[in-house]
Structures are given as C-alpha cells and as structure tokens.
C-alpha cells in the first residue's frame, strides 16, 4: 500500500466519522447539562429519513438538514419534557423513543427506499487543500466534514471557556448550587437538550445526504448506540469524543484491511475489534485504573508542577456529570 492510498483511507475515515462526531457533540452538550438523551438511535434513523425526503422533495439540501434538525430537536424535547416537567425517568423515555424512531422510520420510509437522491457536493478549500498529507485528508472534503470539525472546536470552547458554558456544566454537575447562584437550571436543560437533539438530527441527515447517501430500512441502525458509547468513552469532552469517533472509524477500516489479509478468519471476528479496543481504552481512562497508574508514576513526574499534573489528570480521568439524569426540585 503506498502513501497516496493511505492518505485516501485516512480521508475516508474522517468522512465516515463526521456524522458520528456531530452526534457525539450534540449528546455531550445535552449530557453535560444533565439530560441523557437515550433516544439517539431512533432519532438518528428518523432524522436521516426526514433529511433525505425533505431534500428530495424540495430539491434543497439545506431544507433537508433543517428538517432533520427539527426531528432531532422534537425527540429531545419529548425527553426533556418528560423528565423535567413530568418527572419521569429519562432513561425509560429515551429508550422507548429509540424504539419508536426505529419503527417509525421503517414505516414512513417504505416508499423512499433505495431511491437516488441529492447529496452534499465535495468542496475543496483553496490553498489549504495543497498542503502535503494534511491537505488531502482534511481539506478535500465537503461541508459536513468541515462543520463537524468546527463543531468540535466550538463546542469545546463554549463548554470550557465561556460563562454560558460554565452555567451549562454547573446545571449538570450540581444543579442545587447552580440554582442558588441564579442559574435557570430547568430552562438551560431544556435549551441544551433541544440543541443537542438538533445536532443529532443534523448527524442523521449527514448520513442520508452525504456519507451513506439515500434511505433504506435500518439505514443508520446501531450508530446512535455507538455514539452514546463514544460520549462515555470520550469522558464527556467533545475533543476526546471526536477522537473516539475517529478511532472507531479507523478500527473499522483496520478490520476491513485485516479481513483482506486474513481471509480464513470470519468477518464478524474483525467487526469486534473496535469494541475490544474501546473497552481497553475505557479501562485506561476510567478513574479506577488511572489513579493507581498516576500514583505509580516515576518520582520525577510526581515532582512536576501542580499545573501540569492537573492538566494530565484532566486528560486521563473522566467522570460523568454528577447530576446526570437527576431532576432538580426548585424550591
């Protein structure tokens, strides 16, 4: 395999991962604010269908993405309303919605199966596309990929560098403290759950209009659950989540390559590779294993400035938002 081929593979991994990255960012935002949107698998399917159909009928790609975002937002709104207003269990509502989205998309999509439809055109960025290696991987893509990459940066910046992001995280970590300090916890949770849901919807359309063009029953089935796993895997950080999504895409590509080299091994065995890798990395980043590892670090490291240690700790350790899925009784 020569380098051109390798670069092409990397470029394709990035493209394949783009919808997953968008969905992971959306869910990260929602969970950071304290709302688990477990409906993701169903809402991805339904929004993929909605995006495809809307773009097909209207002839406008933009309208397709808007329709998909609306579907995702509505699903998230149902979860938010059910848990924040009706005080029902978020996990239960989300799970039922995931089933509903799956079945509903199969039913509504019957007459749109395997039809040719519109797709997002490639858009090479001038100048940048000519950078060796990086150009072909990052800058000879299309708007969806650029959006996904930008979204990661913006989400990270918003969560960790802005006042609004601080309030968002406080709502998911310790809502009673946030409330005491005048943060409108419930309003924020609604807002970010719906925003996160809309991003999940956009991810759905990114499949049906770009990465896996068209519609078929169960078109994106499973990707929602994978995205949920990656959110945890990424320690509720958009950057680590995006890396997780790319890693997942890469191991899938690797599985394909391996399969070609070892045809005597069953394909399903290679399909398990990404999951095995994820379990290993999860064990490494979860606090239980990271803490003793850090404790056994060489003495030179333990003498490192406190600021460095804090940074490394932040990178290695990840805990879910403390109030994830818990309601807040205001007053």
């Amino acid at each position: 395999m020569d380098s051109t081929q390798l670069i092409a593979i990397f470029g394709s991994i990035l493209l394949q991962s783009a919808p997953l990255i968008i969905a992971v960012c959306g869910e990260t935002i929602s969970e950071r604010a304290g709302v688990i949107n477990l409906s993701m698998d169903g809402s991805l399917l339904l929004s993929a269908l909605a995006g495809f159909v809307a773009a097909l009928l209207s002839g406008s790609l933009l309208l397709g993405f808007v329709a998909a975002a609306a579907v995702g937002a509505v699903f998230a709104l149902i979860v938010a309303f059910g848990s924040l207003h009706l005080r029902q269990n978020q996990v239960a509502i989300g799970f039922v919605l995931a089933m509903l989205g799956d079945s509903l998309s199969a039913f509504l999509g019957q007459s749109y199966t395997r039809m040719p439809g519109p797709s997002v055109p490639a858009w090479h960025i001038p100048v940048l596309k000519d950078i060796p290696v990086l150009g072909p991987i990052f800058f000879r893509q299309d708007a969806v990929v650029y959006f996904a990459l930008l979204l990661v940066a913006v989400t990270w910046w918003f969560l960790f560098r802005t006042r609004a992001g601080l309030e968002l995280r406080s709502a998911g970590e310790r809502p009673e403290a946030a409330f005491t300090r005048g943060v409108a916890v419930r309003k924020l949770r609604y807002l970010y759950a719906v925003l996160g849901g809309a991003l999940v919807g956009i991810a759905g359309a990114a499949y049906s209009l770009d990465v896996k063009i068209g519609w078929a029953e169960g078109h994106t089935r499973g990707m929602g659950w994978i995205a949920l796993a990656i959110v945890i895997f990424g320690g509720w950080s958009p950057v680590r989540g995006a890396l997780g999504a790319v890693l997942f895409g890469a191991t899938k590509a690797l599985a394909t390559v391996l399969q070609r080299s070892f045809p005597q091994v069953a394909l399903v065995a290679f399909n398990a590779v990404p999951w095995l890798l994820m379990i290993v990395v999860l064990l490494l980043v979860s606090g239980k294993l990271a803490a003793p590892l850090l404790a056994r670090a060489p003495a030179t490291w333990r003498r490192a400035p406190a600021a460095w240690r804090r940074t490394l700790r932040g990178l290695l350790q990840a805990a879910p938002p403390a109030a994830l899925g818990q309601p807040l009784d205001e007053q």
Partner: protein
Amino acid sequence: MLAAAHAAASTDFFLVYLANIIMQVQLNTIHKQFGSLVANDEISVLFEPGRIYGLLGENGAGKSTLMKILSGYQRPDRGEILLGGAPQHFASPRQALAAGVGMLYQEPLDVPVFTVLENYLLGRAAGGESPRQAARALEALAQRYGFDIDPHEHTSELSMGERQQLELLRLLAGGAQVLILDEPTTGISAEQKDILFASMRTLAREEGKTLILVSHKLDEVQELCDYAFVLRKGRLVGGLPLPCPNQQLVSLMFDELAPRPARRQLGQHAPALSLQSVQVHTGRLELEPVSLQLQAGQVLGLAGLEGSGQELLLRACAGLLPLSGGSLLLGGESQPDWNYPLARQHGVAYLAAGRLEEGLVAGLTLTEHMALVSHTHGLLVDWPQNRKLAEQHISTYQVVGQPESYIENLSGGNQQRFLFAMLPQNLKLILMEHPTRGLDIRSTDWIWEQLDQRRAQGTAILFVSADLDEIAARSDQIAVFSGGRLLRSLPAAETSADELGHLIGGAL
C-alpha cells in the same frame, strides 16, 4: 475650623447611621408550615449591623428554615422580611444575594469538579471581567481575610474549611452585607476555625456587616457572638446578650435539663481488640503501622482531621478494608483472614456515618428492616411478628415513627436510634463513625447512655468523630491521627478538647 471638623464628624455620624439603617434586618411574624409541622411559628427578630448573632436551638427547632427564608431559598407562608425598613420578596437565593443577604450552607453549595475560579465566577453578573482579573480579585479578597486559596486548584482537592472560605469570598464578592453561616465549624480543623472566626470578627467589627451564626455548639456561640436568639419548637423563646452562663442558654433551648451523668469507668481486664502494627493501604492514603489495645467495656476514640487515617483503621477493624500488614486480635485470638462476615459472626458491629447510604435501606419501612435483620431462613416472612418487633423497638428506643414509616422519612436522630435498635445483643465490639453527627444534645446523650449500658455488659467501643468534645468526654482512651499515622495515644482523663484540637492539627 472647629465648625468644619464638627460638620465632618456629623457627616461621618450620619453615614454610619445611614449604613445602619440600610443593613438592618428585620423579620416580622414569619410563619412557615410543612404539612402539619409548624417549622416557624410567628417569629419576629431584629438583626443590627456590625454585630454577630448566634441562632441556637435543638434539631428541628426551626433555625434552618428561618435562615433559608431569609436567604431566599424558601418562601414564608406569612410574614415579611425588611432590609433597612424596605420589604423584600425573595424569589430565589440569587435575588437575596443581590439585596445583600448571603448564606453559607453547612455542606458548601459549590461544584466540586470546577476549579476554585470557576466556582467563584459561576453566578456572578457578567461584568466584562476577564478570568485573569477575576483570579486577581479573588486572591486579593482572600488575602484580606487571611485565607490562602489557589484560584486554579480543583475544588474537590480543597478541605472542607477551604471550600467554606471560597463560598464566603464568593458571597462577599456578590455584595453580601448580611451573612448567615449554618454550622460552619462542622468538619473543619481547629486552625481553620480560628481563621474563620477571625474573618467573621473583621467582617462585623471593621466592615459593619451583620453576621448570623447558626449553631448548636454553645462554646462557639459564646466565644464569637454578641447576642443569641434561641428557638424552640418553631418559636422564638428568647434572646440573651453574650457571654452569659451556658446554663441560661441551655435552659432556654430545652424544656428540662437532665444533667450529664458522671462517666463511669467500665474497663474490664479482658482484651477485646488488639491491633499489632496494623497497616492499611488505599490508593489515596497509606496508614503507617498502628498498635492499639482495647479492653472489654472500654471506649477508644479516634481523633483526627478527616482523611488522617482513623477512618481507614475503623474500616479495617470492621473487615471492610484488608490489612496490608500487622495483625488483628479479637478477644485475644488472632484473626489472619479478617473480613466483614467474619466480624459479624464474632460479635462486631459497624455503624457507618452515612446512615441512609450504608446503614439503612431507603425505601423500606421499619418493619421491613426488622425482617431484613432477623436471621430466619424460611421462604416467607412472618410480618405480624416483625411488626411487633418494630413496635417494641420503637417504644424501647423512643423512635418517633410508625412500623409502617419509611426509614428515610425519619429525622437523623430517629434513624440513628433505630440503627441502635437493630444492633444485636451481646456484642463484643461496636465500631462507629460519627455516631452523633447532626444530632441534638438530647439524642446524643441518649445514645451514649445506651452505649454505656452495653459497656456494662462488656462491649468495647471504637469510634471516630469530628466532634472533639465528644471524643474528650466519652472516651477512656484517645488515639490521635495525623497524615496517615498514629500521632499519640493518651488517656482521656489527661486531655481536653482544646488540646486535642492542637494535636490533630499535627502539633506535638
């Protein structure tokens, strides 16, 4: 010349007068009811600026409710709050702080995963202040009150006392003129208590702020406050200028006063527990070799700041943590493979600090708890029998509750009573974490009376407490821990809570 000076003086006087008017806090006939329970019954009090007030009362006397109302966390059913004569209607704690009233909760209401700076910024009005400026402002403010806080440290790494200092600074930066502190000395070191008290004095005497200390520790209130209001069963029963004899306050707080019986020496010369060079390692702390002896009927109190290793030792004795070195002897017999089920078989009971987390099962009734601890192996539960048992325990142990009550609906004191009720008879050793944390004086005395009865039967007691008075008053022997090692072991008769306070800070 003279006239000008006079004019200046009278302006000063006028400003002081004005400030006093502005910051005066008046509560008029505050009434608050939860179901049938009247938490605040027509309470009217006046707090003047520049003074430190103590708010005293038993558990459930209505102190917290009154302060939550003043700080905007709850709304009164009736009555009004006046700040400088102007009526206020706080819809949220944020509004109260905007009007100048801030409350420091017993458990600091911060976000542990945030950095100190992020906690400070959260909820502050966006004023174009850059994080760097905010960090500088925070450090300057901390310095003013003698606090030492690194703005970039993670809040979860701070001690309880430092988290409290952070909250205090945040409230001050938010413009608090009236500060309410709810049991601020629970779980903080003697040194941090001194810093806190010094800052409270500065705030009141030099800056003219109004401070309200909610506490049930009389000594602290006497030491710090100018005046004490006493609540009993939701009513204001009186106010006294301080200092005054403790007896006067106590007689206001309680209907009748049972004098604390003199401690009986109940140590018998039979070994109950013996630890020989016991070591315990966890990811966080390594406990250096500890050797201790405990006779039957004796009480050994383990003192130390939270996380000094005494909790590890207690859990190791209960068989909940493995020993990584040394040996444990129970009643003279070596126990090489010590674990919790074995401990239970040998008559060792363990009462955890988290009553609802580790001791009781939330969601089960008292009767169901009885069924859970009764060791019958039938398929079916004898409900009438267990109900009868629950009733018996309720009356013997004076638990306020019904056999059908859910355990989480009982007050802390009653939960603890019920935990004691469930302890088997004829125990060799009782291990306790903070046995009376959050309980009022009466429940505390009651619980130690029960323990004394068990001691008379030869039960040894090993306990950890953050309350140094409790350790000094209830133990025969005291072991002081600091930074993962046993600093000293001394007879309780030869020490005092004050001395312990210095010892646990690491001073030799």
